[in-house]
Every structure is written in C-alpha cells, then in structure tokens.
C-alpha cells in the first residue's frame, strides 16, 4: 500500500467515513457538470424528492453537444436544444453557476475549471466525464464518474470509492526538440497498455514533467484514463502556483492564495513516500508519437515501423490485426506519409492557448493541403478570445483552417462536426476508437498539435521536425 503520497493525503483529508461495503465515502470539493451525463441524474433526484446538497461547490458548462459553427438559439438540432434547455432548467432550479455561451466563459469542462481557478491543488474533483483526470495536473484528486454517481454527488456532496494503488511514473531527462507532453503520455500508454492502469492512480514525476507548463501537465493527466488509470496527478509546485495566481478566483480573492498555499504544500507527496509501483522512462529518448491503430495504446514513434501483430504479446494480437485492417496500414511501414482528409486541432487534451500557439508557428505562411479540411476548435471562449487577440485566428484562417467556437466537437462527434465515410483524421484529441469521431468507417490518427498542423499542411502524417517553424513575433 502506498504511503505519504499526494493521493494518500488528499484521500484521508476528504474521507467522511467507511461505508458498510468497505468503500470510503469521500467529500467532493468540486463537482463539474455538463449537458450529456447530468440530466438523467437530476431526473433521479426528482424521482426521490432530493435537492442538490452543495450547489455552490457545483459548476456547469455546455460542451459536448454545443454547435461550434452557428450557436444561435434554438440550436438547429432539436436534440441538442433539448439537452441545453434541460441543463439550463436544472441549474436555475438548483442555483448552480453556469458558464453558458453568453457569459464568455463557456468551454470544455476540463479547460474552464482550471481557467477560472476553481480547479485547485488538494481538492477532490469529479465530473461525469472520464477526462476529469485532467485536473490532476494541479495536484487535485480528479476522476470521472457515471450518472448514478452524479446523482450521489448532487444529493450528498460525496462519492463512494475504493482506494486504489499508486504508480509513480518518472520521466527523466530533457525532451528533444519537437517532442511534447502528448508524446509522453502516448508513450506511457503504449508501454503500460490501455488496461495497465486499472486499479491504479498515476503520479507523474521527474525532470521532464517538472519542466512542463501547466497545459502540458494537463495533456498528460487528461489521458490517464486511456491508460486505464481513473486519475493521474502531478505534485503542485511553483509552476502550478504561478498559474493559479493569474486565475479569476485568486485575482478576486488574493488573500486566499496565501491562505491556501500551506495546504497545497502539505499535500505534496513526501520525499520518502511509498508507492505500489514505480516506472521510469527516459524522456530524452522520445520522438513525436502517432497512433497506427484503434486504441490509444497502439502508438509508435514517427520514424518507427508499425509492428506486426505477431511480435506483440498474444493478448494484443487480435486487436492489432483488426486495427490494422480498419486503418489500412501494413506492418513494417512507418506512419509517415499516411494520407489524411481532415485535421482536427481541438479537444480537452490539446486545445489550450499554448497548443494553438505552437501549432500556429508551423502553420504561419503556409497553406492547408487542397485535399484536407482543417479546423481549429478552441477549448474555451477565453482561449478563442486570447488567440484572436494574439493574431492566431488570422494565421489559421489565412492558411485555410476553419476557426470555430469552443466545444468538444470532432473529438467525439456529438455535434455536427464529424468524419464522413472512411475519412482519415490527424487529430489532437485523445481517442482513436472506431466510430469515435462520428463515422464508423472513419480513421483517427492521434498526435500532438504541432504534428496536426504539419499534417494539415502536407496532407499526410508528417514529422513536424522537418518543417521549419516561423517566429510569431
């Protein structure tokens, strides 16, 4: 059993009691809700005649179904309008803050929590969305829950959980030029497997992690779940505190910053903390990673050959064979040169300001390939605004990208942004599952945002290190 880790401390701080099942009842410090997984939970509350216990610790936004082109109400699609209206009604009745599109604060739930400063170290954060692990970048204990658990949290302010083991993943060394946080997490999942983290929480540590900005840490924690780990975190440090200080909450309540900092320091993993498992990866040996298959674990370095199913562990072979058939790739080849039809720069993994900045440096002065439709979907209205102020919008539009409004968009194809037929998509998102981007014949290649920019320009999966960057200033 782990001892003295951030996970142990935050768990202990939030434990209300042990339940008869042996699970612990954990207090929830922040409950984020959105339009897809919460309406049924509010329905259950109503059936049981229960109220929302802690409305002021609950925050709502709309992201999954929101159109990214025409956002005038009512939404064109009836189902989307119905879900939005339902959420509006629920938050109004319960007195829950709602970052709706009219506030200028709307966006993907895992982008807006950090932006507003309500994501903080040492909090327990839950949301009916598996990428809630993102908030772990701040040293929060954050995980996705299902709708019945949303009902629990709404009704009681708590959640029933079993304590997990802790695996420390240490990324040593300095990253090479062109290698990003996304490449680190894709490599972790490739090595440890999509199921390797089941039963574990991941603590990301080491020089390469400490050197990342907060957005990079968020990209890594975001995809913990793709490796099977329900939660992942980075110990808070000066990088975290500097970021927090600039957020709304601490700008409005500067005294809180000094008041809370000792708590944040206290929940860091101890130097002599004990872990259930430790994995070390040499970060300096990584290159940009792309996926060749239909699970996020099926990744390779951009110059590496696609593995033949026979060289993989037996339990992975069947999945690999089916994936290669779907993706139409051959073992022995690299992914470089794989034709793409769509470039999607967006999602809770990689649609924050630094992601767009890095991609813009590749795009500037170049043109999107004639056969590619390329879109940028900023993670939030704030990202969208700031990117416009910095001139990024113009760079993308001049190159031939569509510039959209904030939302989950083509990451999961719940709005009108979807792949068609067997289109191949270079995507900065997190899942390459068959059908994920809205077409069951669609083909998704996951990669970092600069690699998406490169693919948009060349029309094929490319090594971004071969494209000269343009200085934006």
């Amino acid at each position, binding site marked *: 059993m782990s001892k003295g880790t951030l996970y142990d401390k935050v768990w202990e701080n939030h434990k209300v009691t042990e339940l008869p*099942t042996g699970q612990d009842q954990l*207090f929830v*410090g922040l409950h984020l809700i959105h339009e897809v997984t919460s309406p049924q939970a509010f329905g259950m509350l109503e059936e*049981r005649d229960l109220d929302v216990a802690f409305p002021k610790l609950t925050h709502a936004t709309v992201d999954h179904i929101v159109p990214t082109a025409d956002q005038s109400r009512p939404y064109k699609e009836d189902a989307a309008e119905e879900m939005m209206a339902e959420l509006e009604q629920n938050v109004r009745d319960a007195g829950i803050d709602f970052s709706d599109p009219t506030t200028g604060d709307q966006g993907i739930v895992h982008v807006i929590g950090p932006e507003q400063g309500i994501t903080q170290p040492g909090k327990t954060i839950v949301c009916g969305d598996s990428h809630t692990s993102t908030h772990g970048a701040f040293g929060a204990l954050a995980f*996705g829950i299902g709708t*019945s*658990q949303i009902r629990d949290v709404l009704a009681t302010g708590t959640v*029933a959980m079993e304590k997990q083991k802790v695996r420390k993943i240490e990324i040593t060394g300095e990253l090479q030029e062109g290698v990003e946080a996304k490449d680190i997490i894709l490599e972790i999942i490739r090595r440890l497997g999509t199921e390797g983290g*089941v039963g574990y929480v991941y603590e990301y540590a080491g020089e390469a992690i400490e050197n990342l900005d907060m957005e990079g840490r968020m990209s890594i924690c975001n995809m913990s*779940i793709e490796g099977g780990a329900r939660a992942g975190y980075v110990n808070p440090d000066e990088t975290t505190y500097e970021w927090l200080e600039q957020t709304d909450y601490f700008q409005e309540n500067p005294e809180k910053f000094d008041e809370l900092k000792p708590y944040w320091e206290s929940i860091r993993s101890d130097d002599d903390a004990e872990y259930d498992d430790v994995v070390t990866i040499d970060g300096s040996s990584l290159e940009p990673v792309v996926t060749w298959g239909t699970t996020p674990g099926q990744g390779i370095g951009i110059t590496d050959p696609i593995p033949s199913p026979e060289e993989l562990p037996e339990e992975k072979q069947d999945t690999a064979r089916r994936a290669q058939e779907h993706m139409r790739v051959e073992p022995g080849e690299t992914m470089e040169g794989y034709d793409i039809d769509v470039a999607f720069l967006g999602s809770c993994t990689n649609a924050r300001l630094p992601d767009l900045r890095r991609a813009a440096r590749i795009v500037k002065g170049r043109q999107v390939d004639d056969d590619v439709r390329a879109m940028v979907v900023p993670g939030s209205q704030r990202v969208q605004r700031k990117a416009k102020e910095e001139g990024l919008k113009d760079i993308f539009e001049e190159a031939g990208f569509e510039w959209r409004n904030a939302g989950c968009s083509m990451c999961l194809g719940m709005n009108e942004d979807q792949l068609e037929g067997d289109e191949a998509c270079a995507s900065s998102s997190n899942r390459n599952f068959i059908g994920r981007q809205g077409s069951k014949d669609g083909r998704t290649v996951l990669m970092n945002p600069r690699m998406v920019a490169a693919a948009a320009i060349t029309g094929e999966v490319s090594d971004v290190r071969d494209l000269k960057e343009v200085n934006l200033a």
Partner: protein
Amino acid sequence: MSDEVEIPEVNYVSGTGVPIRGNDIDTDQIIPARFMKVVTFDGLGEFAFFDVRFDDEDNQKDHPMNEEQFQDASVMVVNNNFGCGSSREHAPQALMRWGIDALIGEGFAEIFAGNCLALGIPTVTADSETIQELQDWVDENPAGEIDIDVEAETVTYGDNEIDVTVDDAQRKALVEGVWDTTALMKSNAGAVRDKARELPYVEDAAIPDAE
C-alpha cells in the same frame, strides 16, 4: 419519503449467455455517442453495439446480439478491458435495457465496472483461458443456463463450476443490497458538513445549514 428506495440484494444471477469476443471493447462501441443525445436512458437498449450490429442501411450484420439463439441472453461473456474509454453510464444502461443482468469477463475498465455496480449488475472476472472456454460453451449451448453465485464467487454452467473473482466492495454491496449509495451516504449528512468545515478551501457560504 422517496429516500427509501427499495434496493434489492443481488446474490445470484442466472440466465443464458451471449459471448462478445475481443479485448479493449470501448464504450463508443457499446453505445455510439450519437445515441446519447437524450435526457433519459429509456430506449437505449436497441442501440447497444449498434455500429457493429447494423450496416449503413440498418441491415443486420454478423453479430452475436443479432442471432436468434441469443435474444433471451442475460449474461454477457467478454474478454479483457471491456468498457474502456468514456465514463458514459449509457453503456451499461444500454446493455441492461437490452436484457443483460450480469457480465463475466477477463477484466473490466474501472469506471464501467463502477457504473454497472450502481445499477446492481455484477462484473465478475476469471482468467483468459477460463473465459474463452465459457465463451465456446455458450456458443455450443445457447440455451444453457449460467448461474453466478456472487457471494460464493463461483459460476456454474453445464457440468462445470468455476471460481471467479468479485471485487470485495462490489460483492458486499450486491449481497447486502447497498449498491445504491445515495440514501446510505445521505444519512451521514452531519459528518459531511463537518468535513466540509474542516477543509481549508471550502468557504463557509458554500456549506448549507442542516436540513
């Protein structure tokens, strides 16, 4: 008071099986996102595994859940990392509404298993060889009864009895009928408020008065 929701004990599940083969079957396969544009879970059953069961013209494809012999199945037998991906409870809701009362597999994604538990659906595990033998048996004996004893952690089919694993908390929750945790946790409301007061980041104004 509707706080007192009747929560049945789930000691045994019996029924015929349906084998769904493959590792890493994700929740996008179990219920594609386009069917989640609904504000209730009613009616999700017919969309379970939709894209692997039907072609573009809604014609049936080759899939166990389309086969006549498996139409009454209530025990799904799956391989490893079943239910990976999204946290959507729509996935187990769709399976439950199709008719599934229990799953036996090599391994389940954590959020998926938690969502099943919240619906009173056991997710019991065994090693890959045992699972493959059971899947083969189900193919040969589609009308054969499978009995899951949750407390004893055994599965009986044909002349076989196999040991399976049921996670401790899941077993207790099912057997003692405490898998719906809302009322149970609500009964600790006083302690929850005390905990809120202890935490440095929770503002007093966010803590409601006792009911």
